[in-house]
């Protein structure tokens, strides 16, 4: 349950030409900036990244200052330590750290991130769970969208097929790409799932957004831990809160990071598939 009820109420009132929304200025007290950490280790052999930044004021312009002098390491449960260096290519944004060496995360292993900023130490641990395979993707014409497309020519959707292992407790995060750019139905959408209510066959679930002829669609599926599921679920609630009228009061997502840092350190197995829209 998120803002939907508010939309419904708005719909009822709008049906009689009422309901009104306007931008207001919050003069709320702004607190000291907090450390924000975001990191991802996958089972792919590559340079993995960690981003360290600071939060800003609610009305800031989005240039959150990257932290350039942090010490960042990831250690697996075998005792292997991977050092990260700040923006080695000089091509990335400030606060962007890459592992010195390429490495691939191992299914079943846990990884511990340590970020040291000045005298403050932030750590997080996550475990790499297996992920099920994507059986196939399918292109399908969405008739409603075809009749009345929001963007001209964009009325194909991508259907997703997979088998959900029933004997394990699994959590997933999805990313959808249209010609290599991330695709969200709404800028507050987070695509994640647990398998509590899922049967084995995942047959023909539409992914986000619509495609036109000639587009290339790609789906990435990440395994996440229960902690990761909770983080993304809380993040989604926060991004879509109605301010606490019908929904719970907004709250910071529960993270695996210590020392009250914001963000999340995610460890995932990842599979992907792509299909041309033709």
């Amino acid at each position: 349950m998120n803002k939907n009820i508010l939309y419904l109420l708005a719909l009822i009132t709008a049906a009689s030409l009422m309901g009104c929304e306007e931008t207001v200025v919050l003069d709320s007290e702004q607190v000291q900036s907090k450390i924000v950490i975001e990191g991802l280790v996958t089972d792919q052999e590559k340079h993995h990244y960690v981003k360290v930044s600071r939060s800003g004021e609610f009305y800031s312009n989005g240039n959150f200052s990257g932290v350039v002098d942090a010490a960042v390491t990831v250690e697996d449960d075998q005792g292997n330590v991977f050092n990260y260096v700040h923006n080695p290519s000089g091509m990335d944004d400030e606060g962007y750290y890459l592992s010195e060496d390429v490495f691939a995360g191992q299914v079943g292993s846990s990884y511990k991130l340590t970020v040291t900023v000045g005298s403050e130490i932030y750590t997080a641990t996550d475990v790499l769970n297996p992920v099920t395979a994507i059986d196939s993707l399918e292109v399908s014409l969405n008739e409603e969208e075809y009749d009345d497309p929001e963007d001209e020519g964009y009325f194909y959707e991508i259907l997703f097929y997979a088998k959900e292992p029933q004997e394990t407790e699994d959590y997933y995060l999805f990313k959808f790409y249209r010609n290599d750019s991330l695709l969200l139905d709404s800028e507050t959408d987070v695509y994640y799932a647990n398998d509590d209510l899922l049967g084995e066959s995942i047959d023909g679930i539409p992914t986000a957004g619509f495609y036109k002829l000639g587009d290339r669609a790609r789906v990435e599926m990440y395994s996440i831990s229960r902690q990761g599921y909770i983080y993304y679920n809380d993040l989604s609630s926060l991004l879509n809160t109605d301010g606490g009228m019908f929904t719970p009061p907004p709250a910071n997502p529960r993270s695996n990071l210590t020392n009250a840092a914001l963000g999340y350190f995610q460890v995932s197995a990842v599979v992907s598939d792509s299909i041309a829209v033709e």
Partner: protein
Amino acid sequence: MVPTNLTKFLLILSLVWLSQYSQAQQKYTINGYAKDAENGEELIGVTVYVNELKVGTATNVYGFYALSLPAGDYTLIFSSVGYKTVTKQVSLTKNETFNIELPVEVTSLDEIVISGDPIDANVTDITMSRNELDIKQVKKLPALFGEPDIIKTIQMMPGVITAGEGTSSFFVRGGSADQNLILIDEAPVYDPSHLFGLFSVFNADVIKDSELYKGGIPARYGGRLSSILEVRTKDGNNKKIGGAAGIGTLASRFMLEGPIRKEKSSFIISGRRSYADLFLKAAGQENLVHFYDVNAKVNWKHNNNNRFFAALYLGRDVFNFDDTFGFDWGNITGTFRWNHLFNDRLFSNTSLIVSNFDYALEFDDDAQGFNWTSNLQEFSFKEDLNYFINTRNELEFGYHLTYRRFSPGEISPTSEASIFETQEIQNDYALDHSIYLGNEQRLSDRITLSYGARLSIFQNVGKSDVYIYEDPQDNIDIVHKDTLHYDHLENIKTYVNLEPRFAARFMINPRSSVKVSYNRMVQNTHLISSGTVPIPFNTWSPSNYYLKPQLADQVAVGYFRNFKDNTLEFSVESYYKDIDNVTDFADNAQLFFNKDLPTEYRQGDSWSYGLELMLQKKEGRFTGFASYTWSKTERKIDGVNLGRPFLANYDRRHVFNIVGTYDLNDKWSFGGSLTYSTGRPITVPAGRYKYGDTYQVDYISERNGYLLPDFHRMDLSATLTPRKNKDRKWKSNWVFSLYNAYSRKNAFTIYTRVQQDDEGNIINGDVKEARMISLFPVLPSVTYNIQF
């Protein structure tokens, strides 16, 4: 065992005490029912005053009174607001029954001559912290979409706070919305809202009487912490067939009532349905919304000693979107009552009550189709007795047994191809026994006491599995250490609580009094919601292995004063309420379809205090009230807001209301209301950060640390009663309403989003803005009513 001993103790106490009175001097009893002379409806709260002895009583909620007096000649005065006073000479030499009929006071436009009644309930009645609603006045007041709604008037009472317009929730003296016990013909209504709260389920056409208890709650009521809203429907005219109909802007109503056997039995049936969807359908809209209500009641007065009533309410909201997604919810309640006189002084009401609340969501789709249902059922047996011992003592006692079944959720696929599998959150069952005993005792002309207690024995029973957690407060790493299995009706957990109730009234002079009260209330049904306003998709849970009963202690003191021959009633009350184990939930709690819900429970302390002023005028051309409330409500709960105290999300420091109607002549009358309150607290961001490539995330620091802007609104109405009514069998009137007359944009809530233009296209994905939603601008409406 504690309960048995307590029961015995109370029983012995009452027996000893009754026998003491049976030895008193020979007395005779006058009893009977007070009725409306026009339609035969029993009248509640009619004062019966014995002029010679300067003592009196009032009819109970079933219209019955009894007085025990020594032999002699008496003048009995029956009076009630809105009715002509009736005087009766009695020569008492044996037990007598007087069923009295009070003629309706025809509102005369000449200034009312005041009868100078010696009795006025505001000052003399022992009850405090109680508000009655005059349904006739509610109908003349301005109403949203022209639908008169008692809940909207209740929200204007002193000590009552609303979370915003367009909601049917109300918050009494620091209590949350689920701490109100809302009864229709004694059956609880679990969700009193239509259209997410735009209207309440109460159809004004069938309401006879409604009252709100906020403190000093009598021992016969229990189960919720903060208030009792008792709504009683009409029994139906037992003299002649009649009816009413109304066509409003949003809904239409129809009501028919009449005798089945004259003076013996009668019926009433009424229906209401919104019809915006019919217009929308005609306009080609596929998103359809409607609600309806049905109230039906029959009664049969076998003789003066045996009367039977059966009442039914059912109502439902139905939403449909493009034929693929839909949901609906509704209440059904049924009450069967038997009023019986065991003897002249022992009045009994036996009730069988059933209440059902359920909701369903359905999504019709090949791959993602599902059907989700949830329901809650309650079955009660209640035996309530009034023993009119003498003019100094009125005893009430009784036994209530309730069985509840909670089905929090079941989900099933709607097609073979659906990704969903059938899943069910297990049911909860509870048994609730209560016995109570209370006495109202007139110590002297000045002092009246009311004292009693209610013993509640609440059992969470099987069939159920209870998970034992490694750490019940850890909602992230949930580890089941063990599972306890309980069989059908096997006791899982028993909670025994004694709820003392006390009230006292001291008359300073015939026009003013001081009252004090204390009550303890226990609540064993908990709403699983952490929003400010409950929604129909919330579920309820009994007190259980993990969830402890909520306990409230409230003390209140008040000064009551009447002016101008009782036409002006004034009161000032102050209260302090302390709640233990108030049910709340962890930050980020997952309350839907969570089989490990106990890990989200967080119970703690809540406290509230306030001052309430009320000035009311009940008779004359101008009637109405003005109320002012100052109050503060806080909570402190481990695991919520880092364990720091925070303001309740329905806390408002100042609330000021004026409600009034004015009869200009026999053609026009006018109504108006004005409300002003300080904003309620909400949680807003104290900063922002970016996560991933896209997400602009608010940083939250303090729960409820920001106040919404002040709330104020004026509504106006005019009622036109055509003069030609006099010459015809049916009467009609027009009610014109202007809701939010000066079109104030009152904040409903505030949320944040990335900067967008009016069409919702993103202007700048790196900048966020706060958006305030307000629901209603100025809103005119017309309702046409007929009565026959």
